[in-house]
């Protein structure tokens, strides 16, 4: 399969993280954070998701580059891949 799932997934979490972080910054000190015990849940969790998304994206990109430089990997149903 040539679509590496980590790319769309990383992209989605990067975007969600960015939205939450930006929204968290814009609503600093707002009364909506009374619910989350005074913690700016949007900002901090947005940051976590952003980091997760970017690392997924990078892993996916790297493996796609590596695959592009290698001959296509044979899919064998009885034998497992050599090495790796």
């Amino acid at each position: 399969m040539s679509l590496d799932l980590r790319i769309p997934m990383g992209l989605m979490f990067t975007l969600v993280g960015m939205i939450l972080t930006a929204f968290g910054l814009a609503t600093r000190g707002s009364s909506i954070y009374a619910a989350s015990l005074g913690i700016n849940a949007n900002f901090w969790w947005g940051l976590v998701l952003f980091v997760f998304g970017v690392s997924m994206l990078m892993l996916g990109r790297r493996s796609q580059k590596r695959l592009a430089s290698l001959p296509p990997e044979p899919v064998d149903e009885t034998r497992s891949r050599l090495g790796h």
Partner: protein
Amino acid sequence: MLNLTSVDWLIMLLYFVFVLGIGFALKRYMKTSKDFFQAGRALPAWICGLAFISANLGAQEVIGMGASGAKYGLETAHFYGIGAIPAMIFVGIFMMPFYYGSKARSVPEFLRMRFDEKTRALNACSFAVMTVFSSGISMYAMARLIQALHVFDGLFYTMGWPQQGIFTFSIVLSAVIVLAYIFLGGLTSAIYNEVLQFFLIIAGFLPLVLLGLRNIGGWSGLKASVPVQYMHEWRGVAHASTNPMGIEIVGLGMGLGFVLGSGYWCTDFLVIQTAMASKNMESARRVPLIAAVPKIFFPFLVILPGLLAIGLPTPHTTTVVHNVNGMIVRDTNVVPQNVEEGRGLVPAKINPVTGKPMYTAGGQPLLDYDMATPNMLLHFFPTGILGLGLTALLASFMSGMAGNVTAFNTVFTYDLYQSYIHKGGSDRHYMAVGRWATVGGILLSICTAYAAINFNNIMDTLQLVFSFVNAPLFATFLLGMFWKRATGHGAFAGLIAGTSAAMLHHGLTLPIEARPGIHGGWLTVLHHYPSDMAQNFWGAIFAFGTNFVVTVIVSLATKARPESELVGLVHSLTPKPPKAHNVWWKSPEALAIAVLLMAIGLNIFFY
């Protein structure tokens, strides 16, 4: 009550865009029916592993385990420690070589290869019916939850649409999205979206648990605010009357662990299909083991919110008097009666006719445990991250449906259509049939969801019937894979006898404090169980035992199949899979031992 802002909608919308986007992106890879139904048998193990666990992480799991955590406490973790982990290890190490190695395209097809046509037909028909109904139940539960949480109320209000339309809107929305991405990308699309949903659930529920724990004062604070037996998984399990679930160790270990857990994780095509989609034998064997790793830690994610919900203080109507610049201001926070009557954040159930809270015969309020986890979301999440939490909830419903739908289209196309309706068609033809079976399956699910509105009991009845069919299944697979003498006639007779035994057991026994009827005892009551859980587990043990005995007897009385036909299907006649050129700690066996040790460690922690 629920105040969603544009940021919440944006996150939800983003998720839908990506779900559909993955479907469209995968469409061009769908060239043969193998691509569509089996994901080309080319996916890496980690993706299949996360999808394996995610296919099970549907509505019943997220809402149900939270509810069970609120009702029974940490004893719920037995569904993981006993009910899932050992079975997942067993299927990976011992059964996957036959599922994957036989090149069967579905679990019923494996039954045809090992036994005969009629065993396959029985399994395929019952499985196809169950998947359609299950996804219908999932849809119904989702639409009800959306109504209860008032997710779309604001949207409907601004658009000027009638509020009665929310149920239909929720059902149609989820159906269209799931249909679109499966129609386009088949099993690959379903698996990819299940993985996406897996991470989304963690993203949505981990902050919830962290905030909840912080609010209640950490682990020790939680211990202090719930009854002591809620915090122990094993204490009091020797006898039914000393633990919250009302089940003793034998029924729990045998019924949940050996029969029901294995019956689900080792035979249900809904989860097995993801392992069968991986790229080689070793990956396929690793899939359930990879899935077991997050499964060990899921109690923290899905059970803890329920337990926290019970432990937190119950909201009451309060009046706060402020003195603002000499002016006296009274701030009254009115809490609905059913919330005040509840325990912690779990509200009392409301009688839909009178609108008043419902009480048990003893005058205690009847608690609506299913609201435990959703109420936690509403309680702790400010707008923004609330959108993320609700999206995770919706995603879990949709992925539960999607797994059922892909299992249905495969079994329908290969095991029913290709085998009994139209043999020898072109590959293109079967792929088209699979796509249209997806449409048909979803339409039938919608009908089930609507039937559930009109007949209150339909969900309980369906789940009861499923349990009759599923309870004996594991005995058939166990004998089939590990006893070469088992015959097709034996397997068929055993399945019928096992299901009949489950029905008979249910008709003759009753949990205490229940009336004869849907809860059992519809023939006559011979035995009372301390809880419905005990009745359920013991029923499964009887069904399994009956199937086992009948299969053995009938097999011995009928003609055995020649051994040459059973190579690759039975343990003793199959050559050991060739050792891969991996270092020892990368082998599935080493992974299995690591998973087992982790699971034991966690059980000791929860003791």
